[in-house]
């Protein structure tokens, strides 16, 4: 059930910002590969959300609407940077060395779309439909994407365990 709304209120956006800040920054970091750029993208996204809050029609949850803005801002920031793959910059900026990188390294090695979906699922705690809206995918595609990511991770972890 979704409540109809005539635009989002600033205090609602503030609540979403405060409760989800870390998740927003984490996912933005995955997209931008840079913690600083990620933080800037999140700030810019909420500036855009406040300015464009009249455009929120309540067809979906407010978090989903905001997430889409955050992801778009992060992608815009990433486009201005060199398109490079690898571990997220935050890992490099404050990583743990040694033998405990297993799952993280495998996630980092996933294709970009799978990686974004995994982070939106586990950091943002979004359902498949919202992830689909955020990433401009069909819900079925999200399910398939996450399923493929799971399979890859399971396989690699099992191989490591052997």
């Amino acid at each position, binding site marked *: *059930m*979704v409540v109809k709304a005539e635009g989002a209120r600033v205090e*609602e956006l*503030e*609540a*979403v*910002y*405060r*409760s989800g*800040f*870390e998740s927003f*920054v*984490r996912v933005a*970091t995955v997209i931008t*590969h*840079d*913690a*600083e750029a990620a*933080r800037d993208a999140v*700030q810019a996204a*909420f*500036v855009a959300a*406040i300015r464009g809050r009249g455009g929120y029609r309540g067809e979906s*949850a407010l*978090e989903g609407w905001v997430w889409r803005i955050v992801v778009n801002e992060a992608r815009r920031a990433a486009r201005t*940077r*060199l*398109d*490079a*793959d*690898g*571990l*997220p*910059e*935050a*890992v*490099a*900026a*404050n*990583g*743990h*060395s*040694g033998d*405990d*990188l297993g*799952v*993280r390294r495998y*996630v*980092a*090695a996933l294709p970009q779309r799978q990686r974004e979906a*995994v*982070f939106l699922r*586990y*950091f943002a705690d979004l*359902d*498949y*439909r919202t992830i689909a809206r955020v990433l401009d995918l069909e819900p079925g595609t999200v399910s398939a994407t996450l399923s493929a990511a*799971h399979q890859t*991770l*399971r396989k690699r972890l099992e191989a490591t365990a052997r």
Partner: protein
Amino acid sequence: MTDFDALIAAELRLAVPVTAAPDWDAVLRAAVPRRAPRRRVVLGAVALAAAVGVATALAAGLGHRFSSWLSGEPGLPAPTGLQHGFDVRNRAAYAGFPPGTKLRLLTSMRAGGTTFSLLGFRNGDAYCLRLVRADRPGLVGRNECLRAAELSDVPALVANDVSFSVGDPAQNVTGVYGFADDDTRSMVIRRQRGTDVVPVRNNVFLSLYAQPAGSVQHHPLPNPVLVVSARSVKGRTTVVPYVGGGGIGGIVTGGRPVTGPAYFGPAPRTALPGPSKVEAPIAKPTIAWLKHHEPRGKPLPHVAFGHPVFGRVVQPDPDDPDALGIAVGERGALCEYEFTPLMRSSGGGGCGPWFPEGALRLGLWSSGPIAHVDGVAADGIAHVTAFLASGRIVQGALKDNVFMVSFPEAELPGRLVGYDHRNRVAGIVELQANRVMQACPKPAFTTPVNRLPAPKPWERIDLATLEVNGSPILGRTPAEVEAALGRPAVYRPHDPSFRYGGTLPSTMGLQVTFAKHGSKTVARHLYYTSPSLVDAKLGHILRVDPRVLEQRIERTYGATYARRIGYGAQPGLGCTAAIGLRSSAGGLSIGVDPYRPSRPYLELTNGVLP
């Protein structure tokens, strides 16, 4: 959520640590159009001048304060097994100490049924400590080297915090070790729960603590070190700089714990030391030798990611085996690979744009009591200097565009500054502050209890039975929950949960979260923020300060519950209290979001379910 999902979620949180703090005011300021641009204030010259004076005082060596080490032979020669284990490991390591390095046994201690040996040796200008299991001397252990300058103005310094898993059933052994001067008789190690006093021997100390390692279902509380103090022979106690790296995630304000409930919040904003303005920016920063595939340093061994096209390993400090591999990776990215002492392969790294923010690019940052910051500097950078909030200035090592600089992490925040050959500031990177222990805010209730709306069915609970509106909810299917509590405001089928009282986290009063249990989906958590929540005996329990509420729950429901974590007693977990069911692993937690103190919360969990 399955165990596999939980594993991924937990690992990913580690993968992308968030150090930035939310700043809603900045969002609002940016969202509202400004009338006129503000003038920028440039700081720097004053801070630089003040800091330079301090730097000269740091050049002294250990002097007469560490007599055991002055002789070059502290403690006893390491037993043959420990020396042999080190030699084998050192030979196999990519970043090793000089061949023939002789270890000295400084002290040892048993924890978790295992003996740990603290060994010491000199490596050029550095004083090194190695903690290793006596029964597995060939493992990497935990190694840390400090310079005399780092020990010059403190009676003692934590070199490392450690975590080992030993025994069967497994025990987690955590602790700290470090240096202490001749005037220090013992070290006082204050943990989250309890205090340990350990003697100083051979100018070093070692404190270890063992507890069961736990399992997927059972998570023993960590007991991290919070404060480390040196007690002198005359009985004087001095708090030494220390930031825990083992998950504690913060620093105690001013070296002293906050009295009462606490959490780790963002550090207060302070003016950063050192130059703040780039005087001579480097146009198109690059590393020419790397792009031209010049074979500097050592060859890059096989690495697990980045698919380097060409890479080399550079050790910038001859007295520190830490090395950094740099490479041209896929699609032209600049990749870094960390090589820490005694590891057989790269411990981690990352790929990204070459110099996205000027002439310095921060690389790996091994968090712990001693921060080792490394990275790459563009051609044209002649030296790199760290300016720390403590007032200290540390000269970094720089070779073939790779820099490294080490300092106690407690001295952050700071700036890393790159200078060109004319000593002009050519690049600046800010080093973020640690999170700081802060007192939990008192809840701010805006609506008096007598003006709250009457509780709805889902707002009537009984903590004695964990029932809601007279029905058991935990363990029930979504249909059963809906039958008992009414239709939710939101049902999220793919992330199965009900929300009552509102559709958003900010407006809802209750979220019921479901999980798979065998072939069924059943309620696993109840998370309340509704101010109208009423308990059968305690009344409006979310209109009571959590400190008072945890006492009332104990008094009223002592036969059912036992306190596991006092409110705010585990700052790493936030302003929360955990109260467990005596009959099972489930229970409840109560607390306050420090950023939203008007809505305390109560969470109920049935521990019988997976």
